[in-house]
C-alpha cells in the first residue's frame, strides 16, 4: 500500500495537476509560496473530513482556487488520492483505490457549499470513507501527517493537550 498519485483540480494554488509519487522516500522542494504545503492540505482535505486539523482556511470554500492574479475564481474543487492496493489493505477488490472529495460553492445551501465523497468514482457516504481509512490504519489525526509548525507546537503545547494526543491513540 502506498500513495501513487494525487490529482488536484482547482485546489488552492493548483488548477489541474497530477502528482505521481513512488514508494520509499520522496522529498518535495521549491521556493517559498510555491504551493508545497498546499499538497499536505490536499491530503488532509480528503483523509480528514472530520479532522479538526485546520487546513489553514477559515471556511471550506477558501480551498477553492481563487483565480490567482488574473484568472476567474473557480466554482468547485476536486482532489483524488490514488493508492496502490495490491496488498488489499483497503477491503476493496481492486489493485488501485481512488478516494475523491468534491466541494462546490453553492450559495443557496446552508454553509454555502456541497461536499461529496467517491470511492473509485462511485459516490459513497462519509461513513464508508471512514471505515475504509480505519481498515488501512490511515488517519488524519495523530501524527501520520505532520503539518508545517507541528514540531514547534509539540514542545510549546500545554501538558494536558499533549496527554490528549495519547488519549486518542488508546
Amino acid at each position: 500500500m502506498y500513495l501513487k498519485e494525487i490529482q488536484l483540480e482547482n485546489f488552492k494554488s493548483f488548477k489541474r495537476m497530477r502528482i505521481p509519487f513512488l514508494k520509499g522516500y520522496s522529498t518535495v522542494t521549491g521556493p517559498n509560496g510555491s504551493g508545497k504545503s498546499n499538497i499536505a492540505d490536499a491530503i488532509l482535505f480528503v483523509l480528514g473530513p472530520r479532522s479538526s486539523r485546520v487546513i489553514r482556511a477559515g471556511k471550506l470554500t477558501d480551498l477553492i482556487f481563487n483565480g490567482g492574479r488574473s484568472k476567474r475564481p473557480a466554482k468547485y474543487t476536486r482532489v483524488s488520492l490514488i493508492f496502490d492496493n495490491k496488498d488489499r489493505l483497503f477491503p476493496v477488490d481492486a489493485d488501485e483505490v481512488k478516494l475523491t472529495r468534491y466541494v462546490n460553492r453553492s450559495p443557496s445551501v446552508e454553509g454555502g457549499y456541497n461536499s461529496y465523497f467517491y470511492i473509485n468514482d462511485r459516490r459513497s457516504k462519509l461513513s464508508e470513507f471512514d471505515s475504509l481509512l480505519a481498515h488501512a490504519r490511515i488517519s488524519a489525526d495523530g501524527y501520520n501527517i505532520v503539518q508545517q509548525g507541528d514540531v514547534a507546537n509539540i514542545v510549546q503545547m500545554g501538558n494536558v493537550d499533549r496527554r490528549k494526543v495519547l488519549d486518542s491513540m488508546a
Partner: protein
Amino acid sequence: RKDGLMKVFAAISENFHRIHKELSGGGEAELVLENEKNPFEGGLLIKARPRHKKLLRLEALSGGEKSLVSMAFIFALQQYDPSPFYFLDEVDQNLDAVNAEKIAQAIKEHSAVAQFIQISLRKVTLKESDHIVGVTMQDEGVSSVVMEVGISETPEAEPPKVEVT
C-alpha cells in the same frame, strides 16, 4: 479507560526514550505523567537531558534540541500505531546540517517499510531521499510540479529554474 491509556503510555514512552537517545547521540529523555494515579486529571510532561549536559526544563533547551525532542515524540507515536504512509512538512527547519542529516537517515531507514513524503528546503535532507519533486509557481499564482529535480537545482543553490512540463 485508564488501563488503555497506561498501556499506550508505557509503549510510547519506551519508544520515545530509545529514539531520542539515537537521534541525539546519547541524550536522555523521558515522558512523565503528571498524575500517575489518575492520568486523566493531569497532563504529559517531557523531560530531556541532551548528551553531556544536566537535566533541563524543556524551555531551557535550544531550538534544535527541542526539535529533536519533538521528532522523537512523533516517531514514537508513529511506531506505536504504524501506517503505510507518512507526510512531513519542513520538520528540519531548526536543525543544523548534522541533525537534519540524522533525521533524514532515520526516515530513509523507516522508508523500507512505509512510504515517506517530506517537504524540505535543505540540501542535506534532499540528498538522502530516493526521489525529489520540485514545485514552482511560474504562472501568476498557479502552482506546477516537476518530477525528479536534480540536487544541483535545489534551493541551497537556486530555486528550481525548470521548464514547466
